[in-house]
């Protein structure tokens, strides 16, 4: 799946958040679906407000966690899984800066 770095990830409002001991699960009653998030996915999902692009989101996380390596691939992997689970959508802006995920 291609993730456009200029696209704006935004949460799917069908999913409701349930928190258990610091971990979160998203539930959609209409889709009869539940998705478990690890700490990384949780952090990224919370930033999907439709306000910042994927590349901005990556840059912000790099600034926030300067010692963390591989942030870009972690974000792309997490967003790809979220798209597959339909818990976010991407609002496309341009078609440049595509990253290909196997």
């Amino acid at each position, binding site marked *: 799946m291609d993730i456009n770095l200029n696209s704006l990830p935004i949460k799917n409002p069908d999913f409701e958040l349930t928190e258990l001991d610091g*971990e979160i699960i998203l539930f959609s*009653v209409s889709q009869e679906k539940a998705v478990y998030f690890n700490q990384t996915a949780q952090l990224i999902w919370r930033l999907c407000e439709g306000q910042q692009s994927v590349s901005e989101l990556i840059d912000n996380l790099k600034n926030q966690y300067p010692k963390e390596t591989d942030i870009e691939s972690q974000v792309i992997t997490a967003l790809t899984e979220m798209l597959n689970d339909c818990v976010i959508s991407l609002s496309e802006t341009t078609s440049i800066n595509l990253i290909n995920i196997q």
Partner: protein
Amino acid sequence: MSNAENTPVQQHTISFAHKTSLISCSVDKVNHIIQQLFKDLLGPHTSEEPISTYKVQSESTGITVYCGDNLFHTEASGDLVEVANVLMNNIKRDLLNPIQNHLVLHAALVSFQGHSILLPGNSGNGKSLATLGMLAQGCEYHTDEVVLLNASDNNITPFVRPLMIKPHGLDAATELLGAPINDIMVYGRSIISLPFRELEQHFQNSKNHDKRQSELLNPPPIHTIIFPKYDAGSAGELTPFSPALTMIELFKNNVVARNLPDLGTSALKQLAQNTSAFELRYASYEQLPNLFAQIRSELL
């Protein structure tokens, strides 16, 4: 072609969670297996309209099963256990679908010294072998298939039936429970039925019959949840599960979620938060006794 003869029709009323299904069967040997398989679900004949009606008879094509007026299974091989198993699977679905206000969990349930252990899992996860392993260690059996959990009062209701194993699990079952089970098993082409009462006698842990019968239908509260996972490369591990992971796994095994307005999420959350949960990963039945010793230390 069936060589079974039609005999006078026998009627069996199958009851579960206040719903009934009716079987009219004119094949004597099938009647016998129905009595064995549905022993703990047979209810009195009532005037209440059954949720479904089945008719079993011998025809030139084989043993036929009708649901209402519709033919839905012909057993040309004459495998009587297969016929009874088809009935079991369909009647289970009929009786579970209309259930309201309950979690309907695809799970086995055993109990040990006043604590119930729930073993959720889909077919092929290793649930049956793990259940057998627990019986071999002195646990008492309630079901290997479905557990209802009342979302209001947490009462649990097991769908009590004989323990069913696939033919490829036969060697492991014999190793776990001992050779005498060969005499009590009922063999079908795709399923083997093990009458748990005889298994419990074999292990000499049966209590007073009436008390045990009462406990069979009214198990103690759930203390621990074990998610069995057959894994060919595993060394045998019991790994604690967080409440969130527990909830997501329970969600996957809540098979009639639509009977609760929130898909049972609030009830699942409560269960996940209040119950210890583990993943039991194993590659061989030989690992099960040690793993059960760890589970027992969690219980006591």
